[in-house]
């Protein structure tokens, strides 16, 4: 019959296709004993410490490097790691002593020079390091990294190697909490191999952390193994970690539920309703140092006009944060009550009463305030966001619906998607925004300073709305110069209150880290940067 001929033909075609293409092979997955299989995303930039500004590259650096300080995975407190002591008398000149006995995994000793060389590399203009500005507080930065033209010096004049274990740092201004920024990956030490054969190092990075890189297949997998001779106190409690690049976090989650993966540190919002059923209690939802806000274009006179602070406050009060975080985010976000983050804790500057009623949902009052302030400029509020990363559309729609319901006008607010993140950022850089836009901030280090100065200080690097306020700037300067940490925090909070009264940006919610794991592993936790604490994980 016809069917038979067809079947014959089919078998033939399939055989041809298989013969032509079945060239893959090699096992993958399975999971070597004691090894954690974890989801990963392709790092956006080359894996250099001062060049990594997103969480995927950050994961690797956290396993591969240990710096002078390390943020406690639970409390976020900056604790000495390689630093024996960091002393200062004037909050400006620091003397750093490096602990003895640390080496890189290739055997090279970690010395004062390892740090100074690394920082000079990170700061230098010609190395194109995305995080160079972290060294901006160190004297001589304007020479190695001028705003225009070529560098006029090779090294930072503020850095001096005293002996094998000691170096001094001179800052451009007083910055009492500067040592606490040193847990950030950009401040990691680098071995000579990094400078001698840069390409080889990038292909297989070498560091001084609890793991070593066994193999790195770009774009698909990085195999990290426990470094047996790691001298630090936080040795790896598992045999290693296989970081597998996934095209989509939903796919990674499905692989986890199918038992092909052990750890997913980014559970997609659409699956949050299923985590209980799929994973039981193998799900973590813990606070991270991330806050989402709506920024405003203060270079647009309509938004900078007098009375507009009332409109902004009214809009803030028109947003039902509680309902949105519960329904859209399934409680993986917490309604914001100030402009910092709960991971700082009260003594670190977090204050859940600071925003007060301006962050509460009061639709009637919201409508009144918006009207008093002169209404929404242009009549329609367009919330600009980038459509390509994260699922911003859902919450933007929800925020707009909330505002529309409060103002009683179903066209008062609409989302305004921008195709790519790059385009979104260049519209911000070129000051082309005409209404509020998405602003997210992931802390670099757990200090209240980091939540305020980069975002609201005049012309700061992440002050996307170009908000400017002399009183705020003055208070920040005073706080930075304050050597008593408690008083410094009070000053920062005073500055934050200025931002609140002007409603410089509308705080939306604090973002949590959200992770799921398999029954193969235990002791899983996320640190305040929402990165899994890999070295603590044990394999059952």
């Amino acid at each position, binding site marked *: 019959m016809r069917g038979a001929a067809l079947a014959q033909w089919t078998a033939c075609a399939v055989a041809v296709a298989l013969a032509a293409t079945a060239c893959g092979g090699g096992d993958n997955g399975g999971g070597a004993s004691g090894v954690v299989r974890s989801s990963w995303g392709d790092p956006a930039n080359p894996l250099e410490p001062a060049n990594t500004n997103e969480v995927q590259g950050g994961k690797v650096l956290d396993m591969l490097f240990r710096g002078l300080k390390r943020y406690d995975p639970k409390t976020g407190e900056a604790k000495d790691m390689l630093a024996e002591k960091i002393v200062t008398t004037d909050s400006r000149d620091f003397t750093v002593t490096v602990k003895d006995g640390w080496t890189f995994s290739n055997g090279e000793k970690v010395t004062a020079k390892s740090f100074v060389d690394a920082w000079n590399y990170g700061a230098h203009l010609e190395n194109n390091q995305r995080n*160079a500005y972290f060294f901006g507080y160190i004297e001589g930065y304007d020479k190695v990294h001028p705003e225009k033209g070529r560098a006029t010096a090779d090294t930072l004049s503020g850095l001096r190697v005293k002996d094998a274990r000691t170096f001094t740092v001179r800052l451009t201004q007083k910055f009492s909490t500067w040592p606490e920024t040193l847990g950030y990956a950009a401040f990691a030490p680098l071995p000579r191999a990094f400078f001698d054969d840069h390409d080889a190092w990038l292909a297989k990075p070498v560091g001084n952390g609890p793991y070593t890189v066994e193999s790195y297949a770009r774009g698909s997998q990085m195999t990290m193994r426990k470094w047996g001779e790691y001298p630090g106190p936080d040795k790896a409690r598992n045999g290693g970690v296989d970081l597998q690049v996934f095209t989509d976090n939903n796919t990674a989650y499905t692989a986890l539920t199918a038992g092909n993966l052990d750890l997913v540190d980014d559970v997609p919002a659409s699956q949050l309703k299923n985590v209980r059923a799929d994973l039981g209690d193998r799900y973590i939802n813990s606070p991270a140092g991330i806050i989402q806000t709506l920024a405003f274009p203060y270079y647009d006179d309509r938004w900078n006009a007098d009375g507009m602070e009332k409109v902004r406050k009214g809009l803030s009060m028109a947003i039902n944060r509680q309902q949105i975080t519960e329904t859209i985010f399934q409680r993986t976000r917490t309604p914001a009550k100030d402009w910092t983050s709960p991971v700082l804790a009260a003594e670190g500057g977090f204050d859940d009463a600071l925003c007060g009623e301006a962050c509460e949902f009061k639709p009637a009052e919201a409508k009144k305030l918006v009207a008093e302030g002169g209404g929404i400029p242009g009549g329609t509020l367009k919330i600009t966001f980038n459509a390509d990363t994260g699922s911003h559309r859902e919450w933007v729609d929800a925020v707009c619906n909330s505002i529309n319901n409060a103002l009683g006008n179903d066209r008062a607010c609409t989302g305004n998607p921008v195709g790519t993140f*790059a385009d979104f950022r260049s519209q911000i850089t070129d000051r082309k925004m005409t209404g509020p836009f998405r602003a997210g901030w992931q802390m670099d280090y757990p200090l209240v300073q980091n939540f305020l100065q980069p975002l609201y200080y005049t012309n700061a690097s992440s002050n996307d709305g170009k908000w400017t306020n002399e009183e705020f700037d003055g208070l920040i300067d005073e706080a930075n110069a304050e050597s008593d940490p408690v008083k410094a925090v009070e000053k920062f909070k005073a500055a934050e209150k200025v931002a609140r009264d002007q409603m410089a940006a509308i705080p939306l919610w604090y973002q949590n880290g959200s992770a799921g794991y398999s029954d193969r592993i235990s002791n899983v936790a996320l640190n305040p940067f929402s990165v899994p604490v890999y070295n603590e994980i044990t394999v059952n």
Partner: protein
Amino acid sequence: MGRYVIRRLLQMIPVFFGATLLIFLMVNVMGDPVAGLCGDRECDPATAARLRAEFGLDQPVWQQYATYMGNVFSGDFGTAFNGQRVTELMAGAFPVTIRLTLVAIVFEIVIGISLGVLTGLRRGRPVDTGVLLMTLVVISIPTFVTGLLLQLLLGVKWGLVKPAVSSAATVDELLVPGLVLASVSLAYVTRLTRTSVAENSRADYVRTAVAKGLPRRRVVSRHLLRNSLIPVVTFIGTDVGALMGGAIVTERIFNIHGVGYQLYQGILRQSSQTVVGFVTVLVLVFLLANLLVDILYAVLDPRIRYA
């Protein structure tokens, strides 16, 4: 025929230049990619300028294009923003995608043409209606959903396959993604075959063949199918593009690091080096696919001759 093929191959040269220029300009029009490289903060102007210089973005467009083409001819397709060579990206992505595309095309040919012949000969019968309903389902339910549900059922509930394709991406792992990828095209192939078969079954030569007393199987395979395949072959030829470059959704769902995925990443990051390199290779693939289709015309219908 030989001269015809050579002429067609020579036409690749202007197409190659036209396509690269067009895509190069398009990526350029998208604007400055450097703004997206510094995360949620403004690149400091000096670093931004350095990065622009590193990727040659500070030069006029025509000069960028000239430099790029010069490099291409020496085998250098440039570097993506994360420092990875584009040739390395292509070497990883194309074999996987070619396997996936072949699996999908085999599905299209086998399932699509069988169903098409079946429904074409049984128009208006329950089997025809059933296939029509399946067609509607495939068109109106997004690929994303079919992919997700298949992944959930086969991969998690029944544990028949791994839900995520490994980096080796062997053919057996690609069967389910291939089926999902082929699903919409299957609808086209089925309907096209059905219509052609139904139309040609009334043609004189088929009636002649039947009148001569040839067995039904022979009539269908030799006379009916052969003459019905031209639109189907044309469609599959045009579909190669959609399958290879446009498998963004399927590749994402099933964790396939193929051309669609890399191209999508390249476009979002506005990396002209990645995008132009990938698209150029794709255009050449279409050119070959369409040449193959035109040659198949002559095979299927001997009346068509090429000089």
